[in-house]
């Protein structure tokens, strides 16, 4: 059993890859390294935001932690136990405590089941969590908790709007009373007014149930709103990590700076000191990542050294770590030069 000082989730040097198959005979001709050497810790009751563009490996990271993908190597330690080592019933018991909220509220609910069936499916799979006689009452409780009308338990997903479906998805994730909830772009597909409702709901649920969130998103303002700590990923690697305050007031990695400056803000005139970094080009294919620092092909600071050696994730100040050969000191980063390549 984990002591109070131990993190609830600890990911160490995690690698996940997918085979690339040839069109002919489907032979494996190589591997895409979607997650390559990611480590972080997440304390109980906290929220860790994971940000990055598509292709950064953030979704694969989430799927590996929850067991939808098999890691190539590395450890996923949940509550003091290494998940890939567990087997059978033990693994199922551990997995019960990790649940996931999916991005697409339309695809994540089985269209053939009613909301009550969707939520209670978890209890059919894990007998003993909720006795069958209590299912109806428990479904109603959960629906009320996520802000839906409990009388709508017998309706089908298509009878709900996108935001309401996402609430059903949240209710399902809560059915097994998990300790860790992975939100994979859980609010990205929602209209902004509905997104704010769901964000508030997630915050309330965390306070009420003591949940721990791994919050994966590409929207930095949403991540800043909900997270305690943030991990920025680029092509399968962590490039910068720290607390929200550290990351958003003084980002030190060029990629984080670029991401932050690209976030559209409604009143740009009110923030005249915002950096204007418009990155050139796209994220390279994870099938053939650049040598050395993976960000160097889009980085305005890149030198010879960046192509030669991969920068390590180094602590710059009080847990604020970045992987860059030319780091700015966190204190100075605020006045970083305005760059427009």
């Amino acid at each position, binding site marked *: 059993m984990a002591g109070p000082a131990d993190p609830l989730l600890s990911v160490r040097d995690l690698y996940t890859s997918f085979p690339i198959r040839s069109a002919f005979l489907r032979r494996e001709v190589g591997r895409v390294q979607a997650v390559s050497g990611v480590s972080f810790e997440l304390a109980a009751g906290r929220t860790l935001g994971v940000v990055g563009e598509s292709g950064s490996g953030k979704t694969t990271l989430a799927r590996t932690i929850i067991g939808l993908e098999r890691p190539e190597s590395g450890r996923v330690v949940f509550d003091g136990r290494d998940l890939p080592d567990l087997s059978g019933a033990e693994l199922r018991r551990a997995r019960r405590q990790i649940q996931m909220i999916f991005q697409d509220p339309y695809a994540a609910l089985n269209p053939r089941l009613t909301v009550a069936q969707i939520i209670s499916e978890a209890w059919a799979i894990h007998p003993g969590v909720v006795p069958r006689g209590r299912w109806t009452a428990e479904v109603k409780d959960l629906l009320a908790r996520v802000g839906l009308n409990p009388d709508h338990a017998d309706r089908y997903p298509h009878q709900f709007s996108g935001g309401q479906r996402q609430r059903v998805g949240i209710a399902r994730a809560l059915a097994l009373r998990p300790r860790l909830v992975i939100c994979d772009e859980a609010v990205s597909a929602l209209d902004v*007014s509905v997104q*704010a409702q769901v*964000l*508030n709901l997630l915050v309330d649920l965390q306070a009420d149930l003591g949940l721990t969130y791994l919050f994966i998103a590409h929207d930095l303002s949403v991540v800043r709103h909900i997270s305690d700590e943030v991990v920025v990923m680029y092509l399968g690697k962590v490039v910068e990590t720290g607390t*929200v305050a550290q990351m958003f007031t003084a980002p030190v990695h060029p990629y984080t700076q670029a991401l932050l*400056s690209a976030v*559209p803000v409604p009143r740009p005139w009110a923030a005249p000191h915002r950096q204007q970094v418009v990155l050139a080009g796209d994220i390279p294919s994870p099938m053939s990542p650049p040598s050395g620092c993976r960000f160097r092909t889009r980085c305005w600071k890149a030198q010879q050294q960046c192509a030669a050696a991969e920068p390590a994730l180094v602590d710059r100040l009080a847990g604020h770590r970045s992987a860059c050969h030319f780091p700015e000191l966190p204190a100075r980063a605020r006045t970083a030069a305005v760059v427009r390549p």
Partner: protein
Amino acid sequence: MDGTAILPATGRPAPSRPLLSVQDLTVQFGTRAGTITAVDRVSLDVAEGETLAVLGETGSGKSALAQALMGLVPGPAGRVVSGRINYDGTDLLARPRSYTRRLCGTELAMVFQDPLSSLNPVLRVGVQIGELFRRRRGASRAEARRKAIELMERVGIPAAARRVDDYPHQFSGGMRQRVMIAMALALRPRLLIADEPTTALDVTVQAQIMQLLADLKAEHRMSLILISHDLGLVAGVADRVMLMYAGRVVETGELREVYQTLAHPYTRGLMASIPGLAGPRERLTPITGSPPDLLRLPSGCRFRPRCGFATEACRASQPDLLPVPTGPESHRAACHHAEEVVADGRSG
């Protein structure tokens, strides 16, 4: 009849007449469950060289509006029921569709949300761009290819001379959108309609595309209608904004004026729903409820069931789009309590 007010072009030294002037446009779609009015008596003006942002959430009617402007309302379910679309002095709705078709490309052009489904997957992009020159300008094959490369370079596609022979699937999402923009701009249209041009793209690529659109607009003195759900995205590019809710215009005016002095509770709710990138992290104050079902619209003001300012007056009648009492003439809101909303925003 309400909502008939014709907007002045802009607050700036106005050109003689707007390039595009839409009056009382109504678009309906027939569904099995009944007829829905996707666009309900919408009026707008766009001046030469001006950028108008049309903002709204799912179901607001912003995309149906764009389809109507381009003569692309999918029939027979959808049809333009009434209104006028005056383009450069000609009412497009009074002319046959083929007239609008002829204008497409040379006068009007459109960029869609999903570039992959808008490009022909089995034709090289160079051929697709060049075809415009061949068909509309009678250019030779070699000439069209040269023009295609030129355009691809202009929209920032690296190694254009080599990539001109690639197929759409060989491009990334951002590059495909650049190809779409190149095609839209090929014949130098005077008005570009961009329908959620960056929604499918990553934030860094989104910034690139917006930058490109802004540059191109300035370069060609082109008018731009930018349709989006993202209030922040258009802030750097648009001159004026128009917010739509359930098919109606709820607020319109100079972008900065509207964003600073929120006169409609819906606009205010949207603003409050966006988490900030700076400042203290406060609890969001989102709009309650969901957008209405267009088949079962509430009586009076359509935003009433979700509105904190709603009174009996809001139930009784639909508010007209009227100038906001304290603001400039161009800032209009369709709210019975606009003055109250503005005052409340100032004190809060």
